[in-house]
């Protein structure tokens, strides 16, 4: 990972030209980070850069449209910035991108699965080894690959794809630990009935808090989201399985060919519902049909915003 000092210097350099630079600060314990809006030197001292910087900060870009802001991005986050630029949801001249190569973050959910993390006091990192001390006086030793989010296990873009300032040396792309998300492969083995039952059970836990939507960098309709619109009244406010399932499908369909699979939706979900699965499977459909990956090429047109008169991968129906 690049040096924090180098990153601070880079931020200090762009700070005079922008309203704020978005970065990370320590959250309320050692394994948590929270977003930091850097406006002056005092804020800059709070900036951190380590394995706890999991949040995709690109989610904040669309709310500051028209103002010039800076943002720190990892490789995966840079895809979201790319995608926002592709769809002209942000202007290139309004955003100063500070890119940092990333060797992977850690997932709170996966650590949570091992022990309750609300008593964390301290975390030490040594190579791949993490030592987390709790207030109960216990020490937990973890290998970081055991608690890495799935997206890191399948990472193809550790280096930022778009940047104005690059901090540190680009790192070599490592061999992905898994070609495809292992969880998705397991899901694909299920029969249709099992999948339906799987979603029925998972969706019944949903509390319709919309955290998945609000955390999503590509969800930009805000107050005009059709899940809440009264005119047309697309979806009822009832919390039965059907409405909850339908809400997730709205999210998935609206992200078809746009989702950069950053996993913010699933990270934000308080009910542990594997909502990223909807999007990674959609990503595969889009990849198979249009050979397209979201957020990689800034000049490409998202496949559902265009067409070809003769589609190469869509067969005409014979009746």
């Amino acid at each position, binding site marked *: 990972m690049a040096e924090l000092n180098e990153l601070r210097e880079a931020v200090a350099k762009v700070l005079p030209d922008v309203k704020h630079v978005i970065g990370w600060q320590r959250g309320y314990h050692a394994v948590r980070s929270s977003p930091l809006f850097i406006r002056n030197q005092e804020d800059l001292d709070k900036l951190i850069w380590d394995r706890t910087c999991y949040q995709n900060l690109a989610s904040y870009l669309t709310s500051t449209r028209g103002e010039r802001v800076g943002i720190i991005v990892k490789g995966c986050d840079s895809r979201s910035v790319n995608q926002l630029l592709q769809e002209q949801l942000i202007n290139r001249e309004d955003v100063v991108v500070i890119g940092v190569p990333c060797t992977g973050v850690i997932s709170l959910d996966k650590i949570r699965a091992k022990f309750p993390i*609300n008593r964390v006091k301290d975390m030490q990192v040594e190579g791949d080894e993490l030592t987390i001390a709790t207030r109960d006086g216990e020490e937990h030793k973890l290998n970081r690959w055991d608690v890495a989010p799935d997206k890191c296990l399948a990472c193809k873009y550790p280096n930022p794809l778009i940047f104005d300032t690059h901090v540190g040396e680009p790192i070599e792309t490592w061999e992905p630990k898994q070609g495809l998300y292992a969880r998705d492969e397991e899901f694909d083995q299920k029969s249709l009935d099992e999948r*339906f039952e799987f979603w029925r059970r998972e969706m019944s836990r949903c509390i319709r808090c919309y955290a998945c939507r609000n955390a999503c960098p590509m969800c930009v309709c805000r107050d005009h989201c059709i899940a809440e619109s009264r005119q047309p009244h697309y979806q009822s406010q009832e919390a*039965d399985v059907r409405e909850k399932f339908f809400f997730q499908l709205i999210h*998935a369909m609206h992200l078809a060919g746009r989702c950069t699979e950053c996993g913010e939706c699933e990270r934000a979900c308080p009910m542990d519902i594997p909502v990223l699965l909807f999007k990674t*499977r959609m990503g595969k459909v889009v990849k*198979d*049909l249009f050979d397209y990956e979201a957020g990689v090429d800034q000049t490409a047109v998202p496949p559902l915003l265009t067409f070809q008169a003769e589609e190469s991968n869509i067969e005409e129906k014979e009746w």
Partner: protein
Amino acid sequence: MSGMDVKELRIIGFLCNWCSYGGADSAGVARYKQPTDMRIIRLPCTGRMDPLFVLKALLGGADGVLVSGCHPFDCHYTSGNFYARRRLQVLKSYLPVLGIHEDRFEYTWVSASEAAKWQSVVTAFTDRIHELGPAPRLLELEDMPLRFKEGMDIWPS
């Protein structure tokens, strides 16, 4: 098995105003025999067809959904059906992920003069849905406990 001699299933048809709706109308005027399971909704163009309409119908109790519009290159608005083709194909490939058989949804092109083709399309599709039988329903689960993430650190300690 024909859709005509068994209990009806619920099939929704979204038809383009300029082609398929006219085709279905001509089929009716010409007194072609058709199964009666389909409820038709008229669209201004298949370009208006939001894939969510299909999902809403399927989750809402429809057993099958058919979308029919103008042949490629024949769209009244030049390109509506081209956009529709991409969206609907994405949806069709995506349905198995949800545990819904992809044959429950189909999209096709029928022009206003193709009354006979409309008859064969609607008959074939209805037969197909009858073969699949009623769609699985989303029922409320009463035994599901509401649980938050284990050890969720809602409050700092």
